[in-house]
C-alpha cells in the first residue's frame, strides 16, 4: 500500500522555483534512491516533505497514508512518522544525546519510555553503529566530528522508528568506513512496515542495500526511474545523458 504519495509538487525558495512538478510514490517495504546534480532540488524535496518554512509549496500534494500532510507543521509531520537525517545536524548545548532522543521519543509516541529499557536500546544501537558509548552523555552534537554527527542521525532514526526515513546526503563528506556504517544502519532499519528515501550523490552508500528504485532528479523533476543499475550508470557516465 502507498505510504507516501507526491503529486505534481511545485515549490519555491525565495523567488526561485525549484521543484517543477514532481511525482513520487513510495510503498511500505521499499528503499528508494534519489540522485541528481547539485541544484536539481534533492534537498528541497526532503525539506518540503518536512515542511521547512523556508520552502513554499506552490502546487501539488504530499500524502502520507492517504492523508495530505503538506499543511501540517514540521513537528506534526514528524509525529505522523516521517524522519529526516540532516546534511548538517544542529548542535544543541545543555542536553545530552540520551535525554534528547528520549525526549523526542516521548513527543512522538506520547508516552515517556522506560528509562532503563530505552537506554539499553540506545546503547545497543550505538554499538552496532560503532559509536562510542560515552557519547550518550555528551551534549547533543556539540564538538562532534562530521562522521559522529551523521552516526547520531542514524542512531535517532533507529531509535525513533519512523514509518519513512529520509536521508538527505547522509553520506556526503564521510570516509568509506563511516559510509559503510550508515549503510549498515539503513539495513538494520528497513523492514516490510517502513520505507527509506535516500538522497545521495554517490553509490557507495547503496552497496549491500536492497534498493528497489533509483530516481534521477534533474531541474526539479524526476526524469527517469529504474533499478540499482541506473545508479551504476550514473556513476559511470554522469547526468549529461539525462539532460534534454
Amino acid at each position, binding site marked *: 500500500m502507498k505510504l507516501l504519495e507526491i503529486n505534481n509538487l511545485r515549490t519555491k525558495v525565495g523567488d526561485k522555483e525549484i521543484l517543477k512538478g514532481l511525482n513520487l510514490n513510495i510503498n511500505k517495504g521499499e528503499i528508494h534512491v534519489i540522485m541528481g546534480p547539485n541544484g536539481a532540488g534533492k534537498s528541497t524535496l526532503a525539506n518540503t516533505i518536512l515542511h521547512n*518554512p*523556508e520552502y513554499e509549496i506552490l502546487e501539488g500534494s504530499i500524502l502520507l497514508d492517504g492523508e495530505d500532510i503538506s499543511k501540517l507543521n*514540521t*513537528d506534526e509531520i*514528524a509525529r505522523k512518522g516521517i524522519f529526516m537525517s540532516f546534511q548538517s545536524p544542529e548542535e*544543541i548545548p545543555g*542536553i545530552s544525546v540520551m535525554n534528547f532522543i528520549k525526549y*523526542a521519543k516521548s513527543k512522538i509516541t506520547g508516552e515517556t519510555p522506560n528509562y532503563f529499557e530505552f537506554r539499553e536500546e540506545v546503547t545497543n544501537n550505538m554499538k552496532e553503529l560503532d559509536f562510542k558509548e560515552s557519547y550518550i552523555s555528551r551534549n547533543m552534537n556539540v564538538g562532534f566530528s562530521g562522521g559522529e554527527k551523521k552516526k547520531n542521525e542514524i542512531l535517532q532514526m533507529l531509535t*525513533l522508528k519512523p514509518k519513512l526515513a529520509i536521508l538527505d546526503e547522509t553520506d556526503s563528506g564521510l570516509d568509506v568506513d563511516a559510509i559503510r556504517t550508515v549503510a549498515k544502519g539503513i539495513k538494520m532499519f528497513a523492514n516490510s512496515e517502513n520505507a527509506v528515501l535516500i538522497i545521495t550523490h554517490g553509490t557507495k552508500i547503496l552497496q549491500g542495500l536492497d534498493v528497489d528504485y533509483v530516481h534521477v532528479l534533474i531541474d526539479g523533476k524526476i526524469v527517469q526511474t529504474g533499478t540499482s543499475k541506473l545508479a551504476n550508470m550514473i556513476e559511470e557516465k554522469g547526468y549529461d545523458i539525462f539532460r534534454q
Partner: protein
Amino acid sequence: MKKTIVKEVNTNIYDFKNEDEYEYKIEKGLTKDTVLEISRQKDDPEWMRDIRLNALKVYNELSLPTWGPDLKELNMDEIATYVKPKSGKASTWEDVPDNIKDTFERLGIPEAEREALAGVGAQYDSEVVYHSMRMELMAQGVIYTDMETAVRDYPDIVKEYFMKAVPVNDHKFAALHTAVWSGGSFVYVPKGIQVEMPLQSYFRLNSPESGQFEHTLIIVDEGASLHFIEGCSAPKYSKINLHAGCVELYVKKGAYLRYSTIENWSKNMMNLNTKKAIVEEGGTMEWVSGSFGSHISMLYPMSILNGKGAKTEFTGISFAGATQNLDNGFKAVLNAPNTSAVVNSKSISKNGGKCTYRSLVKATPNATNSKASVSCESLMLDDISVSDTIPVNDIETPDIEFSHEAKIGKISDKTIFYLMSRGISEKDALALIVRGFAYPISKELPLEYAVEMNNLIGLELEGSIG
C-alpha cells in the same frame, strides 16, 4: 518562520499577597527622625545608632549613580523603610503566626528545612520571624542568628566586620542600607568546622510601598566551610518597592564559602543590592546567582582576593522579560600572588527585556602568577530585546593569564526546524534551547532551586535533569 511565544517567566507562583498587617509601619520617607525611630524600635546600642546617623549624612551627600539604569522611578518619599510584622522571633514554626507561616509553607521553606538544610532563617518585611539551626552545629560552636541578636550578643564581632567589606560611602544605596538596615543573618563558622548541609535565609517583602534592607554578615574562619543559600520574593504591587540589602562575607585562611542566590522579586521592585567577599590566603569564594525578578536590578557581587592563592568563581544567570532592566555582573579584585577568578555569566532577554553584564576585573601589582577568565554569553529571544556587555579590565601586572570572551546570540530557525523534525513542537523546541543554554548555571544550584529555576523559565522538559 512565524514568531514563537515563550512563556513569560512565571513569577505568579510568588505573587500571593497577605493583608498589609503590621505591628508598626514607619512613615514614608527618609529623615533623621525616621532613622532615629528605627533605631529606637530596634533598641540599638548607642554605637549602632551613631553608625546609622553617620550613614544618613553620607547618604544625603552622595548622588545617584550616573551610569546604568535610570532610577528616577524611585522616590524615597514614597517608601516606608521599616515595617515590623505582627510576629515575634520564633524558633519553631508553630510559634510563627499562621498567615506568615503559610507564606513560607507556600514557598517550600519548612519542607526544605526538614529535608536538606542545616538551618533556616525567614524574614518577613523588616524583621526575622523564624530562626533555627540543627543542634549538632550549635554544639560545634556555629552561630546562625538574626543580625539584631548578633548586635546584642556579639557586639565585638559585629563592630569589627559590619560595613567593613562594604564601606558606608561605597555608593548611595550602601549608605541608605546602613542608615535603615533591619533583619538579615549573622553566621560564624569556627576554625576547622565543615558545615555539611547548607544554611538558608529567605526574605519575603509583603508590604506595599516599602523597602527591605536586611544585612547578612558571614564569617567562615580558618579551614572551615559553608554553603549559604539566600532566596527572596515578593508579591507584585503597582507602586515601586525597594530592596537595598547588603551582604558581607569574610573567608579566612583556607576556608571555603559558597553563596547561592535565587532572586525572584516582583516586577515593581528596585533591587539595588550590594554584596562583597574578602578572601584570605588559600580561601575559596564561590558565587552562584540567578536573577529573574525585579523591575530594575543593579547587582555586582564582588570578591576581593587579599591572600596568596585565594580563589573565586562566579556563576550567574539573568532572565529579563518585558519591563525588566537587569544590570548585573561581577567584580573581582586580584590583590595577591597565585590568585584566580573564573567568571561564567549568562543572560536571556525576551519581550523587550534588557540584560546588561557589567564587570570589573582588577589585578593589582601584587597579583603575580595569577589567572582570570571571564566568559559571558547572552541569548536574545526576539528583535525587541536588548543585551549588552560592559567589561572593565584593569590589569596592573604583566604576570597574569587573562581571558575575556563574550558571545551574543539568537536562536536560529535552522535549529528550531531540526528540533521540530524530531516531533518537538516549536514552543517546546525553544524551551529546550533556552533550558540547555541555562543548564551550566542551573546545575550549580541546590536541587530545589534548580527545579525552581526550570519552573521559572517555564520549561516542561520531562525527565531531562541529570
